[in-house]
């Protein structure tokens, strides 16, 4: 009984706290980015101001289906995160995440807008680039801990990262794609250097863009949760350590974002697959034959 209550508390905590933490993280991100460029930068609460403004603005919709798809995107992202923090199967988490992104692609590809469709195609290319590594990460967790259940992975005596250093680095590599950071922000970008208007988000205005922002907050917290899962073990000190690792990883992503220019999709695909193959597969082979 108490186990169910604990799971329920974790899921509710995720649903309530993730948007707050995610928004704050994005605010800190913008502040650090500004400081790296020698600017003062906006307040750390800026992402919340942005979303409140967007909700209050007129929403120019291309069709009703766009609302449906965007709501499904948000709902599936929240569901993914809830599954993850409830400690369910990590494969389930990753597959539901893919489904969520598919709804986003649908929302962008059904309006007859060339920029939005081009963004949707690029989003698919991004999925193609990061999915193999995501699946290998799930397999790696299984090889290292003998289970797919997030709950049990987090209760091992030794952190998974000890067995999976290659997969961890590979996962951080594809996180750059997931966080939409330069050099892999090819489907859309927060910055104003987008060569195809705003890519996949071009046709989203007002409330629908707000839904997208909130979904990203949830998604980012969930992805950092996966990063933490590499570190967390049965000892209490692994939790602060995991949080520290999350911050370091996020800082590295910001640094890469500010020091690199966007690449073409083919380079993104080939480099992501090369990293997946070299770091991911070699890591798995070593696990298979040496342990």
């Amino acid at each position, binding site marked *: 009984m108490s186990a169910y209550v604990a799971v329920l508390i974790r899921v509710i905590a995720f649903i309530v706290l993730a948007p707050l933490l995610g928004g704050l993280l994005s605010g800190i991100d*913008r502040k650090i980015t*500004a400081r790296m*460029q*020698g*600017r*003062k*930068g*906006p*307040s750390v609460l*800026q992402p*919340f*101001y*942005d979303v*409140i*403004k967007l909700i*209050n*603005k*007129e*929403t*120019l919709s291309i069709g009703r289906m766009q609302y449906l798809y965007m709501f499904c995107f948000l709902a599936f992202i929240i569901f993914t995160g809830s599954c993850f923090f409830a400690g369910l199967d990590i494969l389930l988490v990753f597959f539901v995440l893919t489904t969520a992104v598919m709804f986003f692609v649908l929302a962008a590809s059904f309006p007859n807008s060339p920029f939005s469709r081009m963004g949707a195609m690029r989003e698919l290319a991004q999925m193609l680039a990061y999915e193999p590594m995501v699946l290998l990460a799930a397999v790696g967790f299984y090889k290292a801990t003998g289970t797919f259940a997030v709950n049990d992975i987090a209760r091992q005596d030794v952190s998974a990262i000890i067995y999976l250093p290659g997969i961890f680095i590979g996962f951080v590599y594809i996180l750059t794609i997931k966080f939409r950071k330069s050099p892999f922000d090819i489907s859309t970008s927060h910055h*104003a250097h*987008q060569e195809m*208007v*705003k890519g996949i*988000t*071009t*046709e*989203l*205005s*007002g409330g629908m*863009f707000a839904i997208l922002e909130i979904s990203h907050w949830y998604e980012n917290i969930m992805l950092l949760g996966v990063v933490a899962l590499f570190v967390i073990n049965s000892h209490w000190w692994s939790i602060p350590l995991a949080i520290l690792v999350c911050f370091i990883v996020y800082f590295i992503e910001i640094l890469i974002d500010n020091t690199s220019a966007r690449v073409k999709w083919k380079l993104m695909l080939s480099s992501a697959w090369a990293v997946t193959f070299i770091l991911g597969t070699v890591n798995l082979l070593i696990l298979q034959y040496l342990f």
Partner: protein
Amino acid sequence: MAKISKSPWLLHYDGSSCNGCDIEVLACLTPVYDVERFGIINTGNPKHADILLITGGINTQNKQVVEQIYSQMPNPKVVVAVGICACNGGVFKDCYNILGGADKVIPVDVYVPGCAARPESIIDGVVKALDILEKKREV
């Protein structure tokens, strides 16, 4: 309730300017002026924008473009004409192809004079525009 003026997103459109004003607009984004500290973002997308910044006058070719960009912006929205060219055609006023300032085709809320308009006055103009934006939202 956070105000809309805490997160004004700009769309910059270059009509037929000499590029002098455009360089000043972009200067606002640099570390010296850093408009992002007010939450201002330069978006490239009319559907995300609250403020339309126009530089340069309107000519026969960009008339439809300006009208379309304006119509694609969700309400509430304001228009800031930057530089004397965008205000009334400026030095190009008598050219055969120039129709005049931005207000020939869309309603302009704030006029920022100058040739070129200085970043300080552009920021001043945008701040004025924010008050108007806030009033439009209340209506």
